[in-house]
């Protein structure tokens, strides 16, 4: 569950229309690896394409900024996440199109009937890049290390596992209380405290990826250097020039080496979005993951531009512990006074979808909730009911947002609409990211801008946090009925019934209560060369690099090949 509002807010990624996809399903493409014994046929992911053999397979793309770390357990950001996907592999991995968990380091898994015990069977041929076998003990050690590592800030990812939360929060020393057991060198048994529908997705998440024990113990902080690092993913680190570029080559020891067609990835760290865009235009890179706000109009004219829905919601929190927003009527009035369509079409302009619910659409099988929409007359009536006819006597309130041009524009628009439709004057208060976070934590705001990006394709990622006392609630809002719905959903093992419970929870939030005010669902825009294949649209910004290849030469790949690499 990553709640990310910074520069990445609008910039998420998705897929280029893979036009040539799956021409003839049944036939195994030439050069594809053998089918996996587990039953999942990886060869279906080996997309056929002409001309890749005659092309230097060098993929140059911009990863926006310098990664804070290459240690998967310590990572927190999108930038790092991209790199972890290439360098490491969890027990499960992602299907590049559907994002369903498919076998990764484990070739199959069994789940107990009550959904709480997972038995993972690791591949016997899985190896570290230095040739060491990858075993269940590697995972157990890596997970224990992550839970003990102070720098690991995503420990929450382990919390479905029995005893993990106590191990961290109560500073437990005894590992045996945690439901992770190595039952054979290649079998890992994980016990959860309650069923967790998305646990396999978590197993593909970077925090749960394994690290090589001997390397860490030998090199300490320096273990991620190109000369030291030992990985278990499809790519190995070759060059790391901080703030400039990272280069990767295929990991020769990876169990599915045959599927990897790229011979090299050059990953730039251009953080200025205008520069990034210019670099794409000039042919310097073949994929950029975001577009500068000022360049969107320009980019939309280009055929290479892509835009996709993204698993994330942009909303505003209300501080429900203090008047006037302790009154749900006021919150609802504020919500209905906003014409979200105008914000999407005139401010954001990248095809963002106006939001009336909190759960981002696109989660398979979960219906999109349609809450009350823009209705200034109704909004005024609600405000009058709450005791502020035409906004008279409304206390001084402000909108807190972190400094950023696009947030500013959205906030300005909101203020304008509240003024026009409700007669209420709201002032703007911006502060810098790290300060904004502290202010949020202390509830020192009236209205606060927020964004929430789901870490797994499950509605729970958007609904969990509104339970009483959850760390990311940050509104002071609490409802016993809501808590009950969520508790019941966790215990429900039937997916359809579970979704129904969650849908009811969303309805509870977004019909009358509105501890927050949803504005829009994120989209993800970028530019991608048509020559890049094996790259699919999806709502989570995940494009496993092992399936990518170039169907023809690009300027960037030619230049990179020319420079002697």
């Amino acid at each position: 569950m990553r709640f990310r509002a910074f520069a990445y807010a609008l910039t998420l990624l998705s897929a280029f229309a893979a036009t040539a996809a799956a021409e003839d399903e049944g036939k195994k493409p030439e050069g594809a690896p053998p089918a996996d014994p587990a039953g999942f046929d990886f060869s279906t992911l080996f997309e056929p394409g002409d001309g890749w053999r005659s092309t230097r397979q060098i993929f140059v793309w911009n990863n926006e900024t310098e990664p804070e770390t290459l240690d998967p357990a310590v990572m927190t950001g999108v930038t790092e996440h991209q790199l972890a996907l290439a360098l490491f592999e969890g027990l499960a991995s992602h299907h590049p199109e559907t994002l369903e968990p498919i076998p990764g380091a484990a070739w199959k898994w069994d789940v107990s009937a009550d959904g709480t015990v997972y038995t993972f069977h690791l591949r016997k041929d899985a190896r570290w890049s230095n040739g060491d076998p990858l075993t269940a003990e590697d995972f157990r050690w890596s997970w224990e290390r992550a839970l003990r590592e102070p720098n690991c800030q995503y420990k929450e990812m382990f919390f479905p596992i029995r005893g993990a939360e106590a191990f961290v929060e109560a500073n437990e020393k005894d590992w045996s209380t945690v439901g992770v057991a190595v039952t054979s060198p290649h079998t890992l048994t994980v016990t959860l405290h309650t069923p967790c529908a998305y646990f396999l997705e978590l197993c593909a998440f970077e925090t749960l990826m394994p690290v090589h024990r001997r390397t860490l113990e030998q090199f300490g902080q320096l273990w991620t250097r190109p000369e030291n690092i030992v990985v278990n993913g499809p790519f190995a680190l070759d060059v790391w020039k901080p703030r400039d570029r990272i280069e990767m080559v295929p990991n020769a020891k990876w169990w599915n080496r045959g599927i990897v067609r790229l011979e090299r990835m050059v990953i730039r760290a251009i953080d200025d979005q205008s520069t990034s865009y210019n670099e794409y235009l000039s042919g310097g890179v073949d994929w950029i993951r975001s577009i500068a706000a000022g360049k969107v109009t320009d980019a939309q004219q280009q055929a290479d531009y892509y835009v996709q829905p993204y698993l994330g919601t942009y909303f505003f929190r209300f501080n429900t512990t203090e008047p006037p927003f302790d009154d749900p009527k006021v919150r609802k009035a504020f919500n209905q006074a906003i014409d979200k369509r105008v914000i999407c079409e005139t401010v954001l302009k990248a095809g963002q979808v106006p939001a009336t619910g909190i759960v981002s659409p696109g989660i398979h099988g979960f219906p999109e909730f349609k809450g009350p929409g823009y209705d200034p007359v109704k909004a005024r009536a609600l405000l009058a009911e709450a005791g502020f006819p035409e906004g008279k006597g409304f206390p001084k309130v402000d909108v807190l947002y972190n400094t950023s041009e696009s947030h500013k524009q959205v906030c300005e628009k909101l203020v304008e609409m509240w003024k026009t439709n409700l007669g209420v004057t709201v002032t703007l208060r911006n502060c810098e990211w790290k300060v904004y976070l502290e202010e949020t934590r202390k509830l020192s705001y009236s209205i606060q801008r927020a964004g929430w990006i789901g870490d797994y394709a499950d509605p729970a990622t958007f609904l969990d946090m509104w339970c009483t006392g959850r760390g990311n609630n940050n509104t002071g809002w609490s409802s016993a009925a809501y808590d009950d719905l969520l508790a019941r959903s966790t215990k429900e093992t039937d997916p359809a019934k579970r979704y129904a419970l969650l849908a009811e929870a969303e309805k509870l939030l977004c019909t009358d209560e509105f501890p927050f005010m949803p504005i829009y669902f994120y989209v993800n825009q970028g530019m991608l060369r048509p020559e890049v294949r094996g790259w699919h649209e999806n709502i989570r910004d995940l494009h496993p690099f092992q399936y990518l290849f170039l169907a023809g030469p690009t300027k960037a790949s030619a230049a990179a090949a020319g420079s002697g690499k």
Partner: protein
Amino acid sequence: MSADLDPPSDGPWAQAWKRLRRNAMAIAGLVVVSVMALAATFAGTVAPFDPRISESWETSLPPGARHLDLVNEFVVTAGQAPRERDVPPWLHDGLGDGHDHACELDVVAEEVKQLRVTMDGAKVTKIQGDGARTLAKVELGPEDHLRVKDAGTRIEAKALEPGMALPEGVPAKTGRWVLFAEWVRIAPDAKRTVRVAYGYGTVSAVTVAGAAHAGEMRIRAEHVRDLRVDGARKEHVHVLGTDLNGYDVLSRIIFGARISLLVGLVATLVSLSIGVLYGAVSGYAGGRTDVLMMRAVDVLYAMPYIFLVIVLLTVFDRNLIVLFVALGLVQWLTPARVVRGQILSIKRREFVDAAVTLGTTPWRILVRHLIPNTMGVVVVFTTLTIPAVILEESFLSFIGLTVKFGGEPIDSWGALVDSGRNALGVNGERWWMLVFPGAAMSLTLFSMNFLGDGLRDALDPRQKGRG
């Protein structure tokens, strides 16, 4: 030695002024700076538009673009006085001028969906609309039609789906290209004329197609095709165009001048006050005090100041006061040194000894005798520091340390220039968002520099031509 000194005397300032007046460039600079300062001071009156109200459907209009004079939504109710924000200023003004007025709005209420169609030659490969969603197929209703955005050319098709070829008439291109299409759905009462009679404080009647309309009437500005007030077409013009958010560029520049000039002036005054006082005290005190104070300056001189400013601005709330202090702190060292040097030579002059023998207190000597004699340098420093500070501020805007002016969404020139450079298209599209704020800033800096040079020459003729 004749004692006849008529005509009446000139003070040293008057003399400098005389010399300055002979310097055409400096005077031109002075005029420009004064005009800018006046415009900034009376921004509310001078600016044609409110820089806080964006006209969101009037984005990226080129300079000189004319537009119907409406803001976003037009909301009236018969028998009521409309709220200020709901109607354009002309209507509001008309309510109070003691006459009856009427305005007519031609409204076409059509629902337009934007479609982004990726083409390969004449073949449709992908359709996106309704947010970022990829559409499998677009089926048009009986009243619907498709048209090419901006050009308005009708696309004669009843459905749109990947794989199909577009009918002729649509300008086909080779290779992959993007067609922006509009899917137009016209409501049954699509075309109507709304007539609003108003005056004497209220809207007296709202009529739609001849029939009186009761209750609230909301009209989206983007649906209005024509607007006549008392029979005359009502338009306004954006002399320098509008920006990506629909703000009037000229008004933004005028309001931006407020911040930039204010920052420049106040930070300069802060720095010079500190610098002059410090330098003067140090120079006049002399001896160990002087050594100590100057060593402190040396120490501070070696600091990478911009780094400290950045730290300051990230540490404290980013408001104007902090910016003044931060920028002022950067700039005071050089004046302190120069003023000290001046004081050292001035304090040796005998009029200071004379003042001492008269029993004048050290403080009075400092204030009455020493500091006034450094004013020439100080004035020159002011005119040269202001542009430096304005540049400094713009630089901070660029690296993301924009300063807010009392919570108002008003940007400094630096921030305007930065958003202008971001908006600049590959072939120089939307140049006006960069060029005009940039020109305003450069012109001011230019003028200040010329004025500074001129002042230096005028105040200290021996230094002529330096730097």
